[in-house]
């Protein structure tokens, strides 16, 4: 186990190195932020001074090595715009984004499991069809559009909920519902398909023949065996949520790191973009590791040596 974790840690460092290099190179190739940082009337001397001050007059590999050297010390450079450490800017906004991701995963799972089980235990009934049509709409509708529809309904027409900002639970409802819409639809399909597969197998017949309560057969015996693919997709979805949070944060003016990313891309604020990439990569590594460990928890046949 320790060896496995150590191996994963080394892999993680490799991933970081490659991601930082790719992002760094791409950003250097993109363009010069100087024009955006200085007032349009600045003369050449001012531009040169600014460029030297930010270290942009050096060749890219010198910039990258300097970047790496300070990255090891936890310093990912200073935001061109905010004049604050980039990593701090991102980390400050991380909890807000994580709040969305975690709540969405929780809500999606809690809503999707009963719906999926319900559909699988009543195949080809109107209930099953209704759930299937709902999930088809759910996986087809673009996330940002769902957010807009929810705002039109619950903010503009009904006036029940606020449309922007972060605060109490009432601020959380719409962004989480927006993000959860697609995941619920996907999970329902997954659980329904998995349950239908499992329910036809012999050990379920045995469990029923033993006279176990139907509820016990379904939730203890059948559901457990549909969970492995569910955990895999769940992990992928959790990563995807970090990406879709960018969209949702924009619509609901949620003060997370996704909104910071969009603003920083617009301003060509490289250090912040690189810091975002590094923090996101770390997040994915943690999520993937969590998924792998969850497998071992669910399926005793899986062991990490």
């Amino acid at each position: 186990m320790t060896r496995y974790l150590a191996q994963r840690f080394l892999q993680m460092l490799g991933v970081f190195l490659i991601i930082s290099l790719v992002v760094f190179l791409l950003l250097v190739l993109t363009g010069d932020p100087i024009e955006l940082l200085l007032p349009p009337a600045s003369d050449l001397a001012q531009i040169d001074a600014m460029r030297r001050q930010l270290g942009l007059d050096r060749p890219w590999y010198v910039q990258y090595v300097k970047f790496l050297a300070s990255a090891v010390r936890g310093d990912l450079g200073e935001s061109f715009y905010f004049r604050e450490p980039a990593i701090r800017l991102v980390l400050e906004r991380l909890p807000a984004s994580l709040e969305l991701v975690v709540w969405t995963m929780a809500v999606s799972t809690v809503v999707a499991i009963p719906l999926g089980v319900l559909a699988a235990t009543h195949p080809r009934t109107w209930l099953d069809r209704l759930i299937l049509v709902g999930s088809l709409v759910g996986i087809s509708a673009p996330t940002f559009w769902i957010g807009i529809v929810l705002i039109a309904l619950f903010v503009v027409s009904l006036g029940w909920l606020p449309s922007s900002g972060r605060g109490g639970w009432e601020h959380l409802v719409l962004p989480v519902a927006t993000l959860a819409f697609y995941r619920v639809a996907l999970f329902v399909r997954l659980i329904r398909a998995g349950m239908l597969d499992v329910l036809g197998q012999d050990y379920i017949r045995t469990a029923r023949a033993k006279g176990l309560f139907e509820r016990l057969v379904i939730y203890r015996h059948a559901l457990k065996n549909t969970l492995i693919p569910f955990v895999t997709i769940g992990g992928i979805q959790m990563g995807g949520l970090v990406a879709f949070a960018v969209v949702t944060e924009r619509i609901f003016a949620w003060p997370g790191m996704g909104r910071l990313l969009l603003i920083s891309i617009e301003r060509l604020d490289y250090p912040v973009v690189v810091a975002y990439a590094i923090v996101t990569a770390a997040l994915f590594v943690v999520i993937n590791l969590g998924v792998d460990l969850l497998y071992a928890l669910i399926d005793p046949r899986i062991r990490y040596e």
Partner: protein
Amino acid sequence: MARILSQQAAQRAVGRRVAAREHWAWRALRTSPTALAGVALLTTMAGLAALAPVLAPWDPQAQDLGRRLHPPSWWIGPHPLGTDAVGRDLLSNILYGLRVSVTFGLGSIAISVVLGVAAGVVAGYYRGRLDAVLMRAADMQLSLPFLLVALAAAAIWGRGLFKLIVVVGVIGWAEFARTVRGSTLAVREKEFVEAARALGALDHRIMARHILPNVLTPVIVLISVTLPRVIVTEATLSFLGLGVPLTTPSLGLLIDGGYKYLFSGAWWPSILPGLALMLLVVGINLVGDWLRDALDPRLTRR
């Protein structure tokens, strides 16, 4: 996305030639009302997109300044679905927007398929170092969400419909490569490949004539899963201001331009384009489900 799901479904279809399954496919279509609905919906939406220049009552860029944010008049009046904030006809813009969505989807997927299939066949056929490098790269890219990679790439290479088609198309190579590589590994051990080699066929001929036709079925399944994602990605990027330029009639741009006016009561410029986009995607998903069932040997046996 349902990456693992789709790949499992795709893997199950390995080695099945499309032609051999056609009969099943048509029977599935005839007997399934949802599949028929999907084909009807998809044909309608694609038809609207194709015929946009004929059907659109207005030039999508023409501004009717006297009628800004005009509500939908439905089928009477000059603007059946109303106008947007600068007085452009919404129906015409939605039709042209669908056209951009469909063009984008087909163009991008074509690039992904060509790159991915080529990489997958070569990696699976030659194995060795090339295989290891290609698959590592694919794994690495697939460990990041598609939207995030697309967002980064679009932010770097900038706007323009054609550029974006290429960027998103290139990013899509990984899933196709991994799936096709898996199928190729299975097919290259078959007797007919050995026979071809014994007869003195060269590698490129074996790959093109013997392996390629036998790994295409899972590709079709994978296309049906990735096409909706690609189309929605374009809309999302355009919505975020990182997609196509403002002069392109994209559904994402329309929604972005419209949703600021939600609070002044104008719901149509943002809700209606999204509805059109969703109908297109529902159509593709329904047809995709049918294809998946028809091409999946595990399901047809039931």
